[in-house]
């Protein structure tokens, strides 16, 4: 009895699937009348459908923009600009040379804050991770510092460095330091013991071992961690610029609001922040495709 049911269940499932498939085909026919299916027609249709898949996100954004514009047009008393107003705002910023200046200022701070954190936190994290005792001693401290938002450091940043680039760089540094430290620590833990043993077996000196075994073994994880951390840095720079400096995209947003409720410039700033963040992530992600790193992102 049980046996026969076991035999039947996949068949049942199959027939259900066939029915669903037929149903889908019928309903598709009802919507799109079927053309004579020649080979050419098939490839054309395939090409068209793949293009459609790729255009889908763009189309979705376009629909949202249209909805936004319509909503704004229907309520002209609102301060919020429509998408076209934002485009004009970006044009305004470009004409005054502010956009490029502010983007460069923000990227400058992110670069320095992030690089300083990477240069200090990654070697430190690798070392702490390698020596169990060091980790046992330092881990509680790291875990206490880690949940403190980088924004909580703003008063101290200004106390130590005054209002200026240094304070903003310090805040980004603090925001990046702990995620990178933890990434490096766990990357060392995850190195397969086999690699360490092979390295020992071939009689590598310590510098050789670090350069030829440890570094390549942790690189894929460090790249992933850096990618996430760079995202954090880009979040922090906006907040830092709202308080600690008077240039950059964060400053643009707060300044546009304070100086006459220019919400078109506020949203223009947000759009630029989003676009640059997206491009930064894209650049970091391209590192994951390098051949000698790629093994770290797939099974085997």
């Amino acid at each position, binding site marked *: 009895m049980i046996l026969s049911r076991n035999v039947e269940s996949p068949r049942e499932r199959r027939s259900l699937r066939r029915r669903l498939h037929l149903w889908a085909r019928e309903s598709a026919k009802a919507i799109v009348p079927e053309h004579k299916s020649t080979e050419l027609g098939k490839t054309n249709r395939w090409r068209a459908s793949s293009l459609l898949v790729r255009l889908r996100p763009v189309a979705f954004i376009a629909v949202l923009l249209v909805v936004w514009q319509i909503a704004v047009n229907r309520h002209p008393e609102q301060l919020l600009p429509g998408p076209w107003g934002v485009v004009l705002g970006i044009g305004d910023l470009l004409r005054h040379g502010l956009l490029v200046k502010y983007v460069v200022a923000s990227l400058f701070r992110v670069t320095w804050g992030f690089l300083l954190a990477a240069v200090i936190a990654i070697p430190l994290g690798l070392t702490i991770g390698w020596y169990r005792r060091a980790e046992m001693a330092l881990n509680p401290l790291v875990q206490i510092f880690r949940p403190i938002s980088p924004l909580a450091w703003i008063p101290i940043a200004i106390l130590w460095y005054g209002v200026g680039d240094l304070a903003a760089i310090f805040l980004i540094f603090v925001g990046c330091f702990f995620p990178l430290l933890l990434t490096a620590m766990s990357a060392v833990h995850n190195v*397969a013991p086999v690699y360490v043993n*092979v390295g020992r*077996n*071939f009689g590598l000196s310590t510098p050789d071992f670090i350069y030829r075994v440890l570094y390549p073994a942790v690189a894929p994880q460090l790249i992933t961690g850096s990618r996430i951390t760079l995202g954090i840095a880009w979040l922090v720079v906006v907040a830092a610029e709202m308080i600690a400096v008077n240039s950059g995209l964060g400053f643009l947003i707060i300044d546009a609001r304070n100086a006459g409720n220019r919400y078109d410039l506020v949203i223009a700033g947000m759009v630029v922040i989003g676009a640059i963040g997206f491009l930064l992530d894209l650049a970091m992600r391209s590192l994951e495709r390098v051949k000698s790193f790629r093994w*770290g992102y797939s099974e*085997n």
Partner: protein
Amino acid sequence: MGTAASTTTASDVKLRVEHVGMVFDRDGKSVSVLEDINLDVRDGEFICLVGPSGCGKSTLLNVMGGFLSPTSGSVTIDREVVRGPDPRRILVFQERGVFPWLTVEGNIGFGLSKLSATERNERIAHYVQMVRLHGFEHSYPSDLSGGMKQRLQVARALAVNPDILYLDEPFGALDSITRLIMREELLRIWQTERRTIIFVTHDIDEAVQLADRVVVLSSRPAKIQDVLTIDIPQPRNISSARYLEHRDDLLKKIGLAYTV
């Protein structure tokens, strides 16, 4: 007949294991894994270590390789006490032994950084040929099959010209057909290069097919239960009466190991 091993003269002993014992500390309890292991291995000999799973075969291999220091006793190679891993003796692992961030060439050349570029390239080319990986020099391990990866690991080991090769169930993760091919390849390489080989396996056929002598370990704590000399010349006919006799003999020994 099994104890014929101990009659080797001191002069041609390559590796000597003397009274080796190993006790691990696990959750505050001490677990004895190896107990009074004594073994002499001649230069160029092919030894298989067999025993029930988890008995400590790999531990013994790691002690011989210098990766673990024994709790008692010692391992000497050419009358020199083993104190750590050394490129003169290379361990081949069951899985994940090749570096996934290096190409086939990079892996084989891993231990050759002290050679000049031309010498290194010659050596790499030689071993690429030997393990039949030509055409894959620039491939990454992720593009190789399991058998090819193990051949690559053997090639990387041989490239540094070691006296001894330790193999820790090197074909254990491969399918049975690939495993047969790999045995043939290993024998071919062994016959041309004549290194001393210590080979850990749980596969009876593998042991009888490959080894000059098979060392049978008992279940934990592992002791040497028996040493069988397989005096059939290579290549061995695996359906010959003598082969089957040795095989049955070994099976009986292992069976005992399970029932004791």
